[in-house]
């Protein structure tokens, strides 16, 4: 299955190169005749030249990433089964530990709170927050990891959790293989969105996790942050050759930033510590914020550097 998905993707990426005028895929670089003149002309100067990236160059990184995603999903299936068993027998402390393990695995996909919508509505059902729903946590549309988190830590109900875990397992199973393919897009615009994750996974951590907006009782945001660091490491690893060929300093300095962040997570108790960030001493929280902030500042140019050029546009 794993290699089949990768091969399929590779083939589709190759095919995509010759089909750049796909209707659903407007080029990022619009032609000068169509574009209005209201912008500031001549912004790019030769000193800032960046070698263009074409879709085919992302085929190998995407293939590696597909394998990574596939491995994590396999792992996640087993972890959800374990979680379900713990909830069924009413062992809440085991279920809480199993929930954290499974959630961190999910987060390592780079899909924290399904913020970037790569898995679409399904991603929202798996890890969405309740805030935007008409009756928030009471809404039947509130499903997935965070609902189970509320079952366990908020309502102390193994029975409710077991039913919601079973539902989550069904949702996660629907992700493969069709949704995985959707997640790893084949169009130039889609590839650009994928490359954005280099900094957006941690942007999301900064916005939702360091504010603890995504917490439904587990106080597991240190672990969330650590999983987001891992997901970012993976993105950097698969894209490193392309980035280094253009801006050699980014990968080493981002790697340093991520190490600093990991050190600060450890200093705050480590990924397994259930800490309420709202109650954390300011100095400690500031250290996490600044380390995360520094990493995203370093990573922000990646999506620009690797912006895909569509041939002929």
């Amino acid at each position, binding site marked *: 299955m794993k290699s089949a998905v990768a091969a399929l993707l590779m083939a589709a990426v190759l095919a995509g190169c010759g089909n750049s005028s796909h209707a659903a895929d407007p080029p990022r670089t619009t032609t000068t005749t169509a*574009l209005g003149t209201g912008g500031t002309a001549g912004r790019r100067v030769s000193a800032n030249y960046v070698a263009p990236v074409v879709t085919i160059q992302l085929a190998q990184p995407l293939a590696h990433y597909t394998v990574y995603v596939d491995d994590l999903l396999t792992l996640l299936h087993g972890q959800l089964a374990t979680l379900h068993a713990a909830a069924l027998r009413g062992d809440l402390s085991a279920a809480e530990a199993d929930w954290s393990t499974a959630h961190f695995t999910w987060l390592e996909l780079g899909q924290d709170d399904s913020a970037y919508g790569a898995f679409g509505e399904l991603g929202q059902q798996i890890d969405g*927050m309740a805030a*935007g729903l*008409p009756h928030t946590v009471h809404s039947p549309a509130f499903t997935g990891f965070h609902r189970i988190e509320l079952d366990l830590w908020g309502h102390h109900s193994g029975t409710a959790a077991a039913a919601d875990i079973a539902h989550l397992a069904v949702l996660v199973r629907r992700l493969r293989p069709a949704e995985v393919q959707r997640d790893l897009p084949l169009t130039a615009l889609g590839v650009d969105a994928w490359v954005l994750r280099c900094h957006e996974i941690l*942007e999301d951590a*900064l*916005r939702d996790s360091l504010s603890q907006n995504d917490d439904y009782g587990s106080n597991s945001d240190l672990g969330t942050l650590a999983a987001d660091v891992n997901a970012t490491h993976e993105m950097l690893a698969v894209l490193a050759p392309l980035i280094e060929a253009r801006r050699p300093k980014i990968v080493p300095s981002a790697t340093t930033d991520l190490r600093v962040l990991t050190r600060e997570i450890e200093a705050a108790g480590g990924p397994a510590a259930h800490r309420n960030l709202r109650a954390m001493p300011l100095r400690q929280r500031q250290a996490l914020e600044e380390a995360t902030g520094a990493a995203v500042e370093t990573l922000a140019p990646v999506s620009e550097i690797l912006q895909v050029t569509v041939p002929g546009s």
Partner: protein
Amino acid sequence: MSTDGQNDKLDRRGFLARAGLGAVTAGAAGAGILGPGSTADAAGGQRTTGTADDALLRDAPIVIPRGDPTLAAVPFHGEHQAGITTPKPPAGAFASFDVTAQSRAELIELLKTLSQTARFLTGGGTPPAPTVDAPPADNGTLGPTVPADALTVTVGFGSTLFDQRFGLADRRPLRLKPMLPFPNDNLDPAQTGGDLLIQLCAGNPDTTLHAMRQITRATRGGLALNWRLEGFTSPPRPSGVPRNTFAFKDGIANPDVGDEAVANRLLWVTDGTGEPAWATGGSYHVVRIIKQFVEFWDRVSLAEQQQMIGRFRDSGAPLDGSAEGDIPNYKADPLGYVIPLTAHIRLSNPRTQATEDSRIFRRGYNYDRGVDLNGNIDVGLVFNCFQQDLERQFIANQTRLIGEPMVDYISPIGGGYFFAVPGVRDAQDWYASRLFA
């Protein structure tokens, strides 16, 4: 961190004073930037102090170059409330209250008091002189005479006012209801809703704050604050419509409500709209506190920012145009090659015959209020709009915007739906008097 000009100046003055070089040099250096009126006072104070004791650091009154502190009064009485179509001055303040008045009669008294207070504040004038038997009637923060400073006081009712407490259930404006979250919202109950909303706009923030204090004082016992927020409008940078905190010009595409026919079609509740008779002349008022993640935004490329908005950042022109007032030609770009189909301006106002009736009249303010829990700067937009029909206009607009690419960079966290009541007609009238007739 570099030292700003003011500190630099203070250091240098301190040094000069200690060295005994005296006031003349420093005073002359300072005079160039002192505004008219403050020069004499400041210089006089300095001379006196300098002569009296050279060992003491001299006072250097703070110097603030700014615009006119006393804009002309905006008429309070009229068919419609001021603060909607009247020019939008730079300072805006919003406060939501719950009514704690215990009866219908008390509510009526409260609204009469509110009307009298607003009438005085918006007109300006000299408050009664302080007497020995009570604290002063005016808080004094605008000086002994209260300038009008273009203050407007715009009052709106939330749907909760029309519950059983005051016998108003059968008079609720037809479309008024609590604000339910849209899918990308993160509404904080402590900053959402309320029985009564007051919007204060004026030339300066001290004017709105003065008014807020006078109003809350006058209505003490009857109105309890829920949440409040102060906003500002930037000056043109460098020209045209002011920019929001994302640096984009915001409010370019407002309908022309100066045209009475347009206003009667889009802005005011009129006799033909099926609303209760008392509501004619009012308008649905939507306030949304929208946090803007400016740190995140600043890490996004200009090209992507412009694709999300659909305009050039620098000029404000739509991506197919050259000036901020240009009307985007979506018909020429049906696939969104120039202005993406998901661009904010395109979703919000598709400029079709079918969507013309859903246009809203925006009157937003930027806000800036400290630090978020995650160390980010807490800034954003007090999204503020008026319309004839809540469902047909704001809700339809916002529904089109669900899931737009910009949602990652913003978070609506509060606000509410209100009904801005009809205008206070004359010196005997009071807010929403016809509601109780």
